[in-house]
C-alpha cells in the first residue's frame, strides 16, 4: 500500500515549524514544513458532552422535526416499516396517533396508562421507560417512496425528489435490511427510552404497518453543532467536516420548493447500514489506516494539518512529489471540494449485531444523513463506491430513503398537509 512515509507525515514532528503561514498559501509545501492551520481550528472544546437525562425537546417547537439539527444523543434506534394499509386514511390516523405518542414520549410521559384500572385490560403504554426521564429523546419520522405508489392514491402528493435510490457502485444491499415505507429514528441519551418509543410506535402501528428492519445504534458517530467529534468503530473521528452552521443547513438540508406539505422545514433522509470488517481493519497498520482516512487517528487532524479542524490541502505533496493526501482516501472522495460543493448533513451511529456466522464481530456504521436533494448522496456515494480506499473494509448492506416532513404545530400532526 502506498502509504506516505510515516516519519514525515507524523503530526508530532510538524507542529510549530514555519508558524504563521496560512494553509491556503501553503500549497506545494512539503509535508515537513506544515504549519498550524490558523482560523479553521475553531474546534469545540471538551470531549465530555454532558448528558442530562431530564433534558427534553418539544415535538411541536420549530420548523423542522427534531432529531436532525438537534444535538446528537448517545443512542439511537432506527426502524423502518412496510405499509399494510389499503387506504390513505389508515396512514393518516397512524401518523396522527404517532405524532401524539411522540410528543408524549419526548416529554418523558407514557403514551397511555401503564396499568389500567379496568379488569382484563392490557397496558396502553408498555412501561419500560416509566420514570426514566425524557433523556433528550427525539423521534423523527420519514415517508418512503412506497407511500406514494398505487396503493393509497397519494401519487400526486409525492415529494418531488423522492425515489428509490439507484444501484450504486459497491452496493451489497440485502433486501431484508433495506427499504421501508416509513422510517422512525428515535435517539436518546438512554437507550431504553429510545427503544421504548420505537416499540410503542410499532405496537400502535400493527395492522397498518409491519416492521421491516431495525438498527440499534450507540456512540454517536457524527458531530452536530457545538459537539465534539466522536469516533467511529474504526477508531477515527467521524464528522469533522460535517455541516454545523445553520446557514449551511439552510443551503444543503431544508427543502424550499417541494410539494406543499414538505415545504417550510422538510428534508430528505438517506439511511445506509454499513458493515465494517473491523477485525481486518484492526490488522492494518496505523499509517495505512491514516492514509485511508487522510487523517491522523488520535486527534483527527488532516494529514496536511496540525489540528482537527484545519482544512485539508488536497494538492499538497511530500518531498518525493507524492500527494500527502491520497486521492483515493475517504476524505478526498467525500470532500465538498471534489464534489461541486455538495454537502450533506450526517447523523450516524455505530452499531453491533453481535457475532456473524464466521465468528467475527458484526459491527459497523448506521449512516443516516439529511439533505435537500437525494442526488447529493447519490453523487457522493457513486464516487466513494467506485474507488474509496475504505471500500476494502466496509460494505453497504442496508439502504433506505425517506421524505421527512416539517415538524407539526401543536394541535396538528406529521404530514397533515399530505391528506
Amino acid at each position: 500500500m502506498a502509504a506516505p512515509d510515516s516519519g514525515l507525515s507524523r503530526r508530532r514532528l510538524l507542529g510549530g515549524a514555519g508558524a504563521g503561514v496560512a494553509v491556503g498559501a501553503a500549497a506545494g509545501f512539503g509535508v515537513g514544513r506544515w504549519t498550524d492551520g490558523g482560523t479553521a481550528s475553531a474546534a469545540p472544546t471538551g470531549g465530555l458532552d454532558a448528558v442530562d437525562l431530564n433534558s427534553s425537546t418539544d415535538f411541536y417547537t420549530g420548523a423542522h422535526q427534531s432529531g436532525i439539527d438537534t444535538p446528537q444523543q448517545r443512542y439511537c434506534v432506527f426502524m423502518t416499516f412496510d405499509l399494510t394499509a389499503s387506504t390513505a386514511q389508515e396512514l393518516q390516523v397512524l401518523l396522527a396517533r404517532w405524532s401524539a405518542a411522540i410528543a408524549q414520549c419526548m416529554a418523558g410521559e407514557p403514551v397511555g396508562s401503564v396499568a389500567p384500572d379496568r379488569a382484563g385490560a392490557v397496558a396502553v403504554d408498555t412501561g419500560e421507560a416509566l420514570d426514566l426521564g425524557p433523556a433528550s429523546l427525539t423521534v423523527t419520522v420519514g415517508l418512503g417512496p412506497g407511500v406514494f405508489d398505487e396503493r393509497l392514491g397519494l401519487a400526486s402528493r409525492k415529494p418531488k425528489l423522492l425515489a428509490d435510490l439507484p444501484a450504486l457502485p459497491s452496493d451489497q444491499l440485502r433486501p431484508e435490511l433495506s427499504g421501508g415505507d416509513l422510517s422512525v429514528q428515535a435517539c436518546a441519551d438512554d437507550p431504553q427510552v429510545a427503544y421504548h418509543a420505537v416499540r410503542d410506535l410499532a405496537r400502535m402501528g400493527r395492522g397498518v404497518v409491519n416492521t421491516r428492519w431495525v438498527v440499534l445504534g450507540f456512540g454517536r458517530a457524527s458531530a452536530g453543532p457545538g459537539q465534539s467529534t466522536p469516533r467511529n468503530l474504526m477508531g477515527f473521528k467521524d464528522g469533522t467536516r460535517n455541516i454545523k452552521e445553520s446557514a449551511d443547513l439552510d443551503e444543503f438540508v431544508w427543502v424550499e420548493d417541494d410539494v406543499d406539505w414538505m415545504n417550510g422545514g422538510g428534508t430528505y433522509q438517506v439511511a445506509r447500514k454499513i458493515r465494517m470488517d473491523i477485525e481486518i481493519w484492526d490488522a492494518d497498520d496505523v499509517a495505512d489506516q491514516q492514509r485511508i482516512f487522510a487523517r491522523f487517528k488520535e486527534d483527527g487532524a488532516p494529514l496536511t494539518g496540525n489540528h482537527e479542524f484545519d482544512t485539508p490541502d488536497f494538492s499538497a505533496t511530500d518531498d518525493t512529489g507524492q500527494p500527502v493526501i491520497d486521492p483515493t482516501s475517504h476524505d478526498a472522495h467525500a470532500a465538498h471540494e471534489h464534489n461541486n460543493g455538495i454537502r450533506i448533513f450526517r447523523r450516524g451511529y455505530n452499531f453491533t449485531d453481535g457475532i456473524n456466522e464466521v465468528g467475527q464481530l458484526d459491527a459497523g456504521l448506521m449512516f443516516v444523513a439529511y439533505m435537500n436533494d437525494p442526488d447529493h448522496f447519490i453523487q457522493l456515494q457513486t464516487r466513494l463506491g467506485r474507488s474509496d480506499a475504505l471500500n476494502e473494509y466496509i460494505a453497504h448492506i442496508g439502504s433506505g430513503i425517506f421524505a421527512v416532513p416539517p415538524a407539526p404545530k401543536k394541535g396538528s400532526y406529521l404530514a397533515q398537509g399530505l391528506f
Partner: protein
Amino acid sequence: MPSRLRSGVGLLAAAAVAASLAGCGSDDSSTDAAGSDSTSGGSSTEGASDSGVSQVAITMANQGGADTCTLDHDSAQAGPVTFTVTNQSATGLTEVELLQDQKILGEKESLAPGLPSVEFTVTLGGGDYQIYCPGGDPELVPFTVTGAAATEPVGDTQQALQDGATDYATYVDDQVASMVRGAQGLQAAAESGDLPAAQNAYANARIYYERIESDVDGFVLDGFPPTDNHGNLDYLIDMRASNLDPDVGWHGFHAVERDLFGRQAITGSTKQLAAELTDNVTKLSTLAKTLTYKPEDLANGAAGLLEEVQANKISGEEEEFSHIDLVDFAGNVEGAQQSFAYLKPGLGQIDGTLTDTIEQRFDDVTAMLDTYRDPNELGGYQRYTPELKKSEANQLSQTVQALQDSLSRLAEKVATA
C-alpha cells in the same frame, strides 16, 4: 411534566400547516371548541336539540400541563344524543367512552390532535352518566340526562355475551367429541400398521385439540398434585420434545408424530402410545363437559390460542416431524374466531369499532392462510418446511400479531358489560 415545554408555542401555531384537515386542530385555544355543533351555551346547559337529537361536543385539550376532556353541555334531554369528539391538543388522550354504571354505551378510539372530529349517537334515558377519558385530568366527567328513564333495561349486552358464552360450551363439546374420534382413527390406523394411513389419521386428528386447547389445557387427573406431569392431561396429550419432563417421559400426539414422521415406522410402542392417547382424550372429553364459560373466558381463550400460534406454530416447533404446523395454525385461528363469533352479538353493542377491527383482522389472517391450502397435502395445507418458514414466517407473524393486539383488548371490553 410536559407543561413546561409546551407553553409559548401558540403563536407559532398561527403559521399553520398548509393544508389542514377539516378546519380542526390548528387552533391552540381551548376556549374555541372545534366541535361541529353550533351551540354557544355555558357548561351547565342542556345539549342543543337538532331535529330531536341533542348535540354535545367533547373537546380534548392540553391545558396548563394537563390533558382534559371538556363537555360543552353537561346534560341533555332523554332521547338520541350525538357526541362530537375533537382532540385539539391532548397528546395523552386517544379514547373517550360514555359510561353508565361502568358499562360502555358508546365510544370513540384512535383520537389524536389534528384528526377530524368524530361522532357517535346513542339513545339515552334519564339518569346519571359519565364521560370517561382514560388518562385525562379528570378521567371521569359527569353527564346527566333528564326525562324518562330508558325503557330498554340495561343488561341486554351482558345477557347477549353470556348467551354466547353458554352456547360456546356446545362448540367445545363438539370439538372434543371429534377429537376422540380422531384419536380412535389414529389408533386404528396404527394398529393396522399402515404408515401412510396413520400419518393421514394423525393430520386429521390434530385440528380439534388446536381449536380448543386454551380451554382444556388445565386439567389435572384426580389424585395428582398440580405440579406432577403424570396427571397433567395437556402434558400427556400434547407435549413436545422441547418441554419433556424426564420423570414422565414422552406421551401423546407428538410422541406418535415422532414415530410416524421422524422414524417413519410403526412399532409396538407406537401402538401403545396411540392407545394411551385415545384413553387420555376420552378422559379429557368427560372433563370438558363439566366446563362452564364466562364471556371473559372466551376473550382470554381466543387471545391464548393466538399466543399459541406465535409461540409454537410460526416457529415450526409444534410439528417438528410432520411439518403440518399450518394445520395447527389454522385450528388455533378457527378456535379463536369461534370464541369471537360467540361474543360478537354482545361485543358489537359495547364497541362496534373494535368488533369491526377484529373481524377484519380475522379476515386478513384467514385470507393469508388460504394461500397455503393444498388439498393434496396432509391436513389440507402445505408442509411448513424450513424453506417455507424462512420465506413466510415474517408475514405470518406480523399478520397474526395485528389480530392478537386487537384481540388482547377484548377481555377488558367484555368485562364492562
